[in-house]
């Protein structure tokens, strides 16, 4: 055997091997299960809220598999527990997006802090993240889809509603972190633009898990007894709500005197509170468990059957995951592949039914359209919807009420592909369109 023929042989076989290798890789990608990452805390302080979303995702995946999966492939959940530790979210997102068992999409996160930690990871490794919780806005990432409410889909309409009810003084109470601070900044700017005087706005921040509400509630009571109709806009988060509402009830502040409208209190949070003294206080969301639609009743039936708990409640972030999962599934069908770039393009414009009887559409800025509702707390721990926007509202990534972001928009469609575009100077500060 000559050297040349040997060389040819080696070359030939290596090509053959390479082809064979490529073949198996292609088979693995097309015929193996589609892997769906679920990144919600199952322990630590956020477990109260997030563990429900993990269960819901498992239910949605099981249902999709019963219906034949996606692209003829089964879905396989990959569950991790970041234990309410923000940096662990980033690490586990990296685990999910690297290696042979890379996931095709991630559903996860609750707090803004954890989302901010995961953001650089999904951008670097080109992952897909569906984020289901209402948040402060001022962000748009090429790799994140925001299925919760932006401030213009929750805070602003709620304030509009209270104004229509004759409220003239505003106490903005919040937990001390990024979401309440940014939301309150937007609200303050919005109220002042609507002619509310500085004296008629009170802002107060308290730490996480705060329980000593007596002097702050008394301050609010005093603030509200100056002869003008007063309301509290609450971005108080988590545990601190229970002692807050208890103190309101004990100091005799009813919804008739000073109504409280909350952005972080849903059905899940109310299960820990005796709601009889709270009847009439409000929450603003895009979905309530009491919403009257067959889609909602079917979803509740599924959820009760899945959890086996007759008392199981549903809430707004659950609806967000329901919408997000269905949008992703439809985008994958449309693109014919789970490839991240293809799905990113095909998902824009996808419209799926939401649980309140309408439909939600994915906008080019990676936010979705949602109806906004105001619900009043009932004595059974549910909300009764007293007002809702006549049509859906599209999420706005960059608030129009903050001077630094009022000229910014986000549009991830070709050819713009920009998450932070200044419409006055037409310069792009973030995204592939920047180059």
């Amino acid at each position, binding site marked *: 055997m000559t050297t040349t023929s040997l060389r040819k042989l080696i070359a030939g076989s290596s090509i053959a091997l390479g082809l064979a290798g490529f073949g198996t890789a292609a088979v693995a990608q097309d015929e193996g299960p589609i892997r769906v990452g679920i990144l919600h805390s199952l*322990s630590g*302080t956020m*477990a*109260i809220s997030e*563990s429900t979303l993990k269960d819901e995702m498992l239910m949605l995946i099981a249902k999709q598999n019963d219906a034949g999966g996606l692209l003829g492939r089964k879905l396989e959940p990959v569950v991790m527990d970041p234990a309410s530790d923000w940096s662990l979210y980033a690490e586990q997102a990296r685990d999910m997006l690297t290696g042979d068992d890379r996931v095709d999409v991630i559903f996860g996160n609750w707090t803004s802090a954890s989302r901010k930690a995961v953001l650089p990871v999904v951008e670097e490794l080109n992952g897909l993240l569906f984020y289901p919780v209402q948040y402060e806005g001022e962000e748009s990432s090429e790799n994140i889809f925001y299925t919760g409410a932006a401030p213009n889909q929750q805070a602003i*309409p709620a304030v*509009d*509603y209270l104004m*229509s*009810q*004759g409220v003239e003084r505003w106490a903005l109470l919040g937990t*001390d972190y990024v979401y309440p601070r940014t939301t309150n900044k937007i609200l303050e700017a919005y109220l002042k633009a609507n002619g509310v005087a500085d004296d008629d706005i009170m802002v107060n*921040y*308290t*730490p996480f*898990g*705060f*329980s*000593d509400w*007596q*002097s*702050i509630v*008394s*301050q609010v009571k005093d603030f509200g*007894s*100056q*002869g003008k*109709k007063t309301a509290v806009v609450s971005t108080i988060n988590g*545990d601190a709500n*229970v*002692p807050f509402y*208890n*103190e309101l*009830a*004990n*100091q*005799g502040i009813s*919804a*008739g005197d000073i*109504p409280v409208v909350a952005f972080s209190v849903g059905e899940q949070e109310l299960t*820990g*509170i*005796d709601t009889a003294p709270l*009847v*009439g206080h409000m929450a603003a969301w895009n979905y309530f468990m009491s919403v*009257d639609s*067959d889609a909602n*009743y079917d979803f509740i039936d599924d959820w*009760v059957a899945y959890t086996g708990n*007759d008392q199981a409640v549903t809430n707004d972030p659950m609806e967000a995951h329901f919408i997000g999962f269905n949008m992703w599934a439809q985008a994958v069908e449309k693109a014919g592949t789970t490839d991240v770039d293809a799905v990113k393009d095909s998902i824009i414009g996808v419209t799926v039914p939401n649980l309140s009887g309408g439909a939600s559409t994915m906008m080019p800025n990676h936010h979705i359209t949602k109806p906004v509702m105001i619900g*009043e707390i*009932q*004595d*059974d721990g549910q909300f*009764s*919807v*007293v*007002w809702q*926007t*006549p049509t859906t509202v599209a999420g706005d990534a960059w608030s129009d009420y903050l001077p630094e972001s009022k000229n910014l928009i986000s549009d991830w469609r070709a050819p713009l592909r920009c998450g932070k575009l200044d419409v006055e100077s037409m310069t792009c500060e973030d995204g592939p369109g920047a180059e």
Partner: protein
Amino acid sequence: MSTFKEQPARAPLRGRNIKLLLCLLMAWSLSFISQSVFAATSSEPRALLEALDTGNFQAKGVAAQAIADSDAEQKTRWLQALLDGRLGKERRGERFYIVTDDSGREWPIIDAITFEDAGTGTRRTVDIFKINNDLRTQIEGLLASLSLSAGDEASRLAAARQLIGEIEADNAASVRQMRNEEESDAVRQPLDVALALYDVQQGDAEALDTLRGNLDTRIRNTLVPIAAGDSPLAAEARSVLDGIESKRVWYDRAQTLFFGLSAGSILVLAAIGLAITFGVMGVINMAHGELIMIGAYTTWLIQQALPGQPGLALALAIPGGFLVAGAFGVVIERTVIRFLKGRPLETLLATFGLSLILQQLVRSVFSPLNRRVTSPEWMQGAWQINEALAFTLNRLGVLLFCLAVFAALWALMRFTRLGLEVRAVTQNRAMARAMGVRATRVDMLTFGLGAGVAGLAGVALSQLTNVGPNLGQSYIVDSFLVVVFGGVGNLWGTLVAGMSLGVINQVLQPWVGAVLAKIIVLVGVILFIQKRPQGIFAPKGRTS
């Protein structure tokens, strides 16, 4: 975004409420019934209920008024059901239902017109009529007027109080007449105030005297524009206003002091167990917070065992929480701390590990979700001294409980044999042993006592805050702060330190906010300890 569903305008609604209040008062004093005033409308029950089936709250308000004015026999029950969110219509049908129990997903329902059993309904089949805040206020008023044709004193008083600031030219005469016919002094007084306020608005200087020193905010709000204006009354109105304001300032101070003491009492309760274990025994017990949590969970468990009797459950939880947490304390002392005597760093690490184990234990056994401990009736609401000063009953209860626990503990240390032995062992362990004191037994009992008191703190905290696995963590740092600030090993020091930190915190809070107030307190204590390392009260005698 601005296309709202039509909202009920506030002004007419308010007018309607005032008319209602007047009716309330008149119904009794002029002894005629509101129904007879309004011409009884034709009352086909179905038509009355049909009118409620609208998305417009203003139209619903009119429909509710029509029901109240009708002579339908079922009207009280209808309005009550509407108020409770239990009146509804068959979806895609014509029947009206009242839900008798809406706790589950399948509701037992009855026919709203005949009250006959109608089987069960769900959210899918029964469309409940919704109400909002304004409508709720209106229906409550309607119900009060229906049930109150007789009018007892308490409801007349409530109605009279609401009249303050609401009297206008068209109803002034009738209120005045009512006031003259009113028999009860208690009811006459707010009516006088209401009328005086109206007279002042009309420019009557003499009426100002009636208002002098009245703390009702509505009076202040009415007087402010008068005092700022240039009417002949302005000067006198200003002096009345000054009088009211200076009186309010004093009550506000008293209120802040109460807030401070009640916040302090929680600190004292949480810290006093630690003052015993850390102060007396020198054990840095990082699991102290979890002992508090155990006390809170014991309260919850006892309440689960006695459904519907939160008062009794709370009373039983006091010994229960003490014993359970105390037992945990004794076990911890016997199994861990005893072997680490004189090695504070290792004790610290071991007890920190213990605290994590206890937290995870609770998470595994009871789930990570918070548990709801119901407060008994007498721990809810507030004791209203006057318009400017009120003591919330749960805080007042905890404050008194704290003082009682402190007194009991102090007496135990001062007058019992155990107290004597504890003090002896603290002051000179070797000498105490030489005198026949069984120091190891004293250690065990002392630690159990400290843990038991932590359990009592948990019982108290269950009335104020969430009962969850993280409950203890929020108090451990504060507890150490109080013990160190008060002087290690001194019960009085703990009391004074806890109370003063509570008051300082509550005074600062409205000015600088809760976060900064806490930082200021922390920095203040650190500076104080620099200057005076032994704390407020130095331990007396030599500690070996």
